[in-house]
């Protein structure tokens, strides 16, 4: 199934929740924020969201800035 992550298509070969997805991406130790289909989720909610085809994710991190 295909989802969109940060504007790019991404294929998922199994049913996973958001927390697992972040884990797979190696981001679980990092402070990131997720917007799931336009809705900002708190990290505590990631486990409850199982990704389905067509989902749109924005995954945001911190960079240097003034």
């Amino acid at each position, binding site marked *: 199934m295909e989802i969109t992550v*940060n504007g790019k298509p991404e294929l998922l070969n199994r049913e996973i929740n958001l927390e697992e997805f972040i884990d797979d991406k*190696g981001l679980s130790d*990092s402070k*990131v924020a997720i917007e799931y289909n336009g809705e*900002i989720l708190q990290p505590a909610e990631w486990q409850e969201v199982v990704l389905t085809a067509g989902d749109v994710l924005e995954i945001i991190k*911190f960079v*240097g*800035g*003034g």
Partner: protein
Amino acid sequence: MTDKLELGGEKLASRLLMGTGKFPSKEIIPQAIKAADSQVVTMALRRVDFDSPAENVINYIPEEVILLPNTSGARTAEEAVRIAKLARAAGCGDWVKIEVISDHKYLLPDNQETIRATEILVEEGFVVLPYMSPDLMAAKKMAAAGAAAVMPLGAPIGTNKGLRTQDLVEILVEEIEVPIIVDAGIGKPSHAAQAMELGVEAVLVNTAIATADDPVRMAKAFAQAVEAGREAYLAGAGPVRDYAEASSPLTGFLEEG
């Protein structure tokens, strides 16, 4: 020292806020923060790039520091609100520097959208520090909306030109109840001291430290200048005159009588 900066419910010993952009390496950032003695540090939010993963800058900011994410990239109040909420969801606290810009040549902030974003984010429980063009009426509206401080620019972002907006900033210092923090344009420690001598409560510096040949040393120089400027403001400068007034007594000269 009882002179503390009261900001967002905190009492801060340091009046130098620091940005984390443009540093030659991330490893220098914690050293520069330490040398600057900064207690409030800004950063930006961007999409994670899975093709070229770079380490999260937050891992280089000491834990005791207050994080001040900015809303750079926002062109409207709504975009700024979205970015602020994302920052809070990422677990970096309630503080936010509002930056709403749609002018790409001078990066001058949109005061009107910034006022709207301030109103919304204060309502949402954020500690709001709006970056703004130094305009009295805009500053009054931001303060009335509940901004924790108002942050006028000294000169366009990254220009290192210094306090070109001095007269307007002085009006804000005189008329606005919340702290005035000069943000952007400060290029040298002397500029920071100049701003502090006017009675602004703090300065925010990024480019001037990050792009110095030795950023850590420059961070320390800024800390010293900010402290000197604050002390000078509290000491109260002597009057300026048009004609000389002798410092030595004008009586008892050797050739007298």
